[in-house]
């Protein structure tokens, strides 16, 4: 890598690593080790393609897409060796803001209860604030499929967390 480009990459990586890590922590529902691994994988892929990535308008958005896909690919690999559980137990009573756990942990537990793709949709839509179309693009899915997943995931989270996300209520 030529020096100027290497410097540019280093600056990008240093500026985005923190945000990518936080995204990865949400995608993995708080598995910080996996999150670190995914961020390094993402930065590695960006490094190799930096020449092209830096030419596209939004390298930060591109990195987020790479991260999301790396996460989903990891989940695919894992699910071939582990039993996938799609049925979420009804634990609404033990979740909810009034439980013993702070809401942050309750939320991570609830995210963990979602299928990986649904979690990716939630993170892209409500943490990255991406539109349905942008989310669909990142997931190589149709907008309709994203809408369906989103509605389903919101319904489940609501069921798991209860209505009581009160302390974050927007005025």
């Amino acid at each position, binding site marked *: 890598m030529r020096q100027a480009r290497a410097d540019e990459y280093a600056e990008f990586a240093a500026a985005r690593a923190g945000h990518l890590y936080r995204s990865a922590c949400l995608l993995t529902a708080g598995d910080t080790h996996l999150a670190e691994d995914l961020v390094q994988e993402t930065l590695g892929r*960006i490094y190799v393609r930096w020449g*092209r990535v830096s030419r596209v308008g939004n390298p930060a958005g591109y990195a987020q897409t790479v991260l999301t896909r790396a996460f989903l690919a990891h989940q695919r690999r894992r699910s071939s060796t582990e039993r996938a559980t799609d049925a979420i137990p009804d634990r609404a009573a033990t979740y909810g803001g009034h439980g013993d756990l702070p809401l942050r942990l309750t939320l991570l537990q609830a995210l963990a209860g979602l299928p990986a793709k649904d979690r990716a949709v939630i993170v892209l839509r*409500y943490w990255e604030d991406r539109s349905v179309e942008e989310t669909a693009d990142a997931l190589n899915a149709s907008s309709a499929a994203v809408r369906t997943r989103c509605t389903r995931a919101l319904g489940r989270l609501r069921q798991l967390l209860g209505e009581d996300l009160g302390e974050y209520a927007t005025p």
Partner: protein
Amino acid sequence: MPVEHDEEHFAGRLSHALHDAGDRFDADRAALVAGGLVRGRRQRLRRRAAVVGGAAGIALVGVGGALLAPWGGTPAPRPSTSTSASSVAGQPSGTPSAVPLTGRELIATLEDLLPEGKFSEQQARGTEDSMPAPYVRLVYDDGKGPGAIGVSLNRVKPGSDQARETTDCPDNALVPHDSCVSTRLSDGSLLKLFQGYEYPDRRVDTRLWSADLITPSGQHVSVSEWNAAAEKDAPISRPEPPLSTAQLKELVTAQVWRKYVEFIPDDPSKPTATVTPPSAPAEPTVEAILGTLVPLLPEDAEVVDRGSDYSYVVVDDGKGRSLVQIDVQHGMGDVADELFGSGSETLADGTKVIERKGPGDKGVAGGAMWTVDTLRTDGFRIAVSAFNAGTQHEAPTRETPALTTKQLREIALSPEWDQYR
């Protein structure tokens, strides 16, 4: 509509909750960046190895690098007499790194981790030289006088005598010192913080403060600092070394050093280093991919530009420029479901094909991106996309891409690609 309104309301609160939860995850950014660099360079090397010697190239690079390193030499800075036995790695545990760590990276990392000040007389050795133990040292001046600071990296066998000697405090009668504390950190690492003197007989009162960290997997990071611009033979320049014990601890425990330890090649005298071919074929080079792609393009599409580090061409059929991108990838079988969902077809030989017509890059009004994505049963993937502009992010130069989806499909399914499987 009350249901939709409710959903929006809940989504708004969820977004707040996600931001609150996400923002509390704090990363060691330097370690993440270093880790990303390691992986990126390995991937890049894999690509280059494919150019020179095919699949075996990469493994040979790794082993060849290690063979050049005579193991067991005396590594650089030895922080004090009490740690004299600590520096020679006996039982290396990591895997050989094909890409050397450079001295320049070590210097940049140390400067980055130190508080603001002036740096001079930087010296470092990465893993590209014949000696296996990397180190970096420099003179740091926080405005109160220069002081030498050195970091050296190595591996030790966890639990060995050598590891204990490194992290146990020495007997004050043998090694006079002002303070020494040895503790176990929450991650299981052992840390020794030592405040003593460069010359145990105190013939010159140069102070040496050091921190030695050994992780449960045997990574050894050693940081030393002096109240003089050099370890020896330099006048005392300040009452104490520049970093406090707390700063020393912060520096020695920075995750990035542990990542760097993984660059140290394994001991080549151990008969474990064997040449094993990588499990997946090497990625073809951009040059090779484009060499295959160009003859497959329609005759009227003249190639006006081509990528050098990414596989794309820009064609012009007389109606405007059109970017054509291609991805040739191995081992993509595990994401088949992600890529080939509804709307995909499966050919007689099991190859999956999906055609997508999308708006292209967001923010480009009127942009069009047409893609044909294909996946062979062995996980070999060819995806070809054409845009209605000469780049991915510029305004359209034409209404539709220069290639039809039928033409893209013919390219993606051409048997010519089988040479890279």
